[in-house]
């Protein structure tokens, strides 16, 4: 394969990754890592570096639109980023002493259960809106988001549980390189009772910061190869832009189904990587 063909193929796949990443709040690693390693025979280290680039590109590219349109909640994002960034630093440190393949398998099994829940709950059309509990009111986490032309108020609950899960999400991203977006969405949607679109777009807002925390390490280790990362970044940005246009009009039900399918794929990826010892 010539460099030109490689760039075009990787750019096209990255556009799909960016599209799915922007819709689900997961980043694009789920698609990028297996396609680069399995289909194109790229070394896993370069694939992980490219995946990191794709996460930051999806996050910043899509969040620019989501924040302005009032979907992403910047207070929830900033508060929970304390947990994810500290978790990520700790995870990267622990990776040297931990058998990451066992963690990958356990994480995969947890994700299968979450995928099932997401698909099962897609039957109910609307979000289950709650009012904020005491701590969430104190932290002014409740806000509103656009629903069919009007602003829908929502509350937030169980902040400590969400914070704890975010710490775990950060640690996982430090340990395994990918997968932190899934836990972020699940923590906000399930534990903190935040509307689904706010959960995915706030996760999307946050994953760039979590990824940036480990970018220095990857860059200095040489994982970020410009020839691989260039088409990934440009493709992902184009796809993410399209994703932000689709999310606004997409029904929550459809988004839950897409989310469920993507994390089921991530689960299988994690388990296979764990068994074959690739993480």
């Amino acid at each position, binding site marked *: *394969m*010539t*460099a*030109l*063909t*490689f*760039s075009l193929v990787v750019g096209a796949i990255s556009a799909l990754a960016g599209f799915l990443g922007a819709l689900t709040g997961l980043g694009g690693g789920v698609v990028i890592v297996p396609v680069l390693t399995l289909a*194109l*025979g*790229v*070394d896993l*280290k*370069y694939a992980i570096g490219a995946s990191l*680039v794709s996460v*930051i590109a999806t996050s*910043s*590219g899509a*969040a*620019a*639109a989501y*924040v*302005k349109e*009032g979907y*992403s909640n*910047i*207070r929830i994002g*900033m*508060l929970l*980023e*304390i947990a994810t*960034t500290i978790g*990520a*630093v700790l995870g*990267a440190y622990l990776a040297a002493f931990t058998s990451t393949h066992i963690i990958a398998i356990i994480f995969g099994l947890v994700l299968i259960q979450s995928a099932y829940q997401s698909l099962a709950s897609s039957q109910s059309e609307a979000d289950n809106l709650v009012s904020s509990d005491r701590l969430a009111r104190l*932290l002014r986490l409740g*806000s509103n988001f656009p629903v069919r032309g009007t602003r829908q108020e929502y509350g937030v609950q169980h902040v400590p549980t969400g914070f704890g899960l975010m710490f775990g999400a950060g640690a996982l991203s430090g340990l395994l390189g990918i997968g932190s977006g899934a836990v972020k969405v699940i923590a906000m949607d399930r534990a903190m009772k935040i509307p689904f679109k706010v959960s995915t777009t706030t996760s999307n807002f946050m994953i*760039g*910061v979590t*990824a*940036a*925390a*480990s*970018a*220095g*390490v990857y*860059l*200095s*280790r*040489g994982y*970020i*190869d*410009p*020839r*691989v*990362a*260039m*088409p990934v*970044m*440009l493709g992902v*940005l184009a796809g993410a832009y399209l994703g932000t246009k689709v999310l606004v009009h997409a029904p929550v039900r459809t988004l839950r189904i897409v989310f469920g399918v993507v994390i089921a794929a991530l689960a299988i990826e994690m388990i296979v990587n764990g068994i074959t010892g690739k993480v």
Partner: protein
Amino acid sequence: MDDTRLEGFIGNLLRAGVLLAASVVLVGGVFYLALHHADSATYRSFALESSNLRNLVGICKSAAHLNSLGIIQLGLVLLIATPVARVGLAAAGFFLERDRLYVLISLIVLAVLIFSLARGT
């Protein structure tokens, strides 16, 4: 300053950062493909690239020499810097809102980010 205005500023910063980074990567990419489009693209085994592409000083130097890979790498560094700048802007915005709690929260995130980036490089 209120949250809606702050959201506008953050959105604009993210958009500007991404567009700048993407333009630089695109220029580098066009340069690279113009010179190397027929090269064989195999990344089957990991080979440590020259240290020029792995640290900030080296990247800036090779970009200044119009090395195509250096230019791409500079664009990627700008992309990585965008979320970091976003956290800094949030801290400034909450300060103007006189929201001490969220200034503190933003500064903690910024400190952890800088600690981890500095440790990595």
